[in-house]
């Protein structure tokens, strides 16, 4: 218990995030570099979609991660509601814009993929509509994060909203099976074989890991800012700023 208390202290989590950031950045850079070179240059064109299928390497990772980010936020919302952990409330606030960006990229790249393959930029089918609703949910959470009046009550409201919104996740995932959609079924599967050739799968997994690390990095950067601002009056921040006063040029991020 003492260990968790230590882990949740603003000072420790701020420092831990600072240590994690370069690692996430480098892993993201290398895996994405490999994924892009392999996916865009080396992998042979698809036998039906030609080179157009290469949009998969940005579309599928972002779509997948848009759901994963929400799942992480839902867990944080639950922790914030049940145990009143402030760090969890912050994680929800920090995660919402990141999830919104992932969803936006998934929607736009999907649209750019749909035009040549389906003949339309947009169609109101279940998968596309539920993913669009996810974007609106993210934006609503961002809206619920702005006001500062009565913070704890607002956090409760936001966390409840996040949990209710998580009902959308299974709808997005199963939409391609429950309804007759234009969108194809899942390419990747954890429980069974994936519907993709191994050479095409390798860069896809690399892009998922790379973008996952990048989104984690962005989320943690936002979380770190929230922690720093929230504890600006505390002793450790004063000390930290005072000792780092002269080397502000070293601060890269």
């Amino acid at each position, binding site marked *: 218990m003492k260990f968790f208390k230590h882990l949740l202290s603003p000072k420790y989590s701020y420092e831990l995030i600072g240590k994690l950031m370069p690692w996430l950045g480098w892993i993201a850079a290398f895996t994405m570099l490999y994924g892009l070179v392999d996916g*865009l*240059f080396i992998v042979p*064109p698809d036998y039906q979609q*030609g*080179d*157009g299928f*290469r*949009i998969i390497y*940005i*579309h599928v990772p*972002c779509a997948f991660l848009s759901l994963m980010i929400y799942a992480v936020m839902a867990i944080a919302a639950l922790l914030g509601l049940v145990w009143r952990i402030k760090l969890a409330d912050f994680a929800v606030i920090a995660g919402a*814009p*990141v999830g919104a*960006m992932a969803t*936006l*990229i998934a929607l*736009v*790249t999907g649209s*750019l*993929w749909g*035009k*040549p393959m389906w003949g339309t930029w947009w169609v109101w089918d279940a998968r596309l509509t539920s993913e669009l609703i996810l974007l609106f949910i993210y934006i609503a959470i961002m809206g619920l994060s702005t006001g500062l009046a009565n913070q704890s009550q607002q956090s409760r409201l936001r966390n409840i909203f996040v949990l209710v919104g998580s009902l959308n996740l299974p709808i997005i995932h199963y939409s391609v099976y429950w309804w007759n959609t234009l969108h194809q079924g899942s390419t990747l599967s954890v429980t069974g074989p994936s519907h993709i050739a191994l050479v095409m799968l390798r860069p896809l997994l690399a892009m998922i890991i790379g973008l996952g690390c*990048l989104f984690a*990095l*962005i989320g943690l*950067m*936002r979380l*770190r*800012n929230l922690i*720093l*601002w929230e504890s*600006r009056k505390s002793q450790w*921040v*004063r000390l930290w*700023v*005072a000792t*780092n*006063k002269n080397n*502000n040029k070293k*601060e*890269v*991020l």
Partner: protein
Amino acid sequence: MHWFYMELIRFINMGGYARYVWPAYGFALVILLFSVYMPSREHKKILRKLRKEI
């Protein structure tokens, strides 16, 4: 070097799908750069503010 340019042009053309593939990656790049830049700017802003106070 001739083959290199041939390969490069083939790559840029994306088998005729260039106007869908490149905007998709370009859009993602812009959004991602923006997403990294914003919190890093915010962090510097907070530190600057705190330095002034101390």
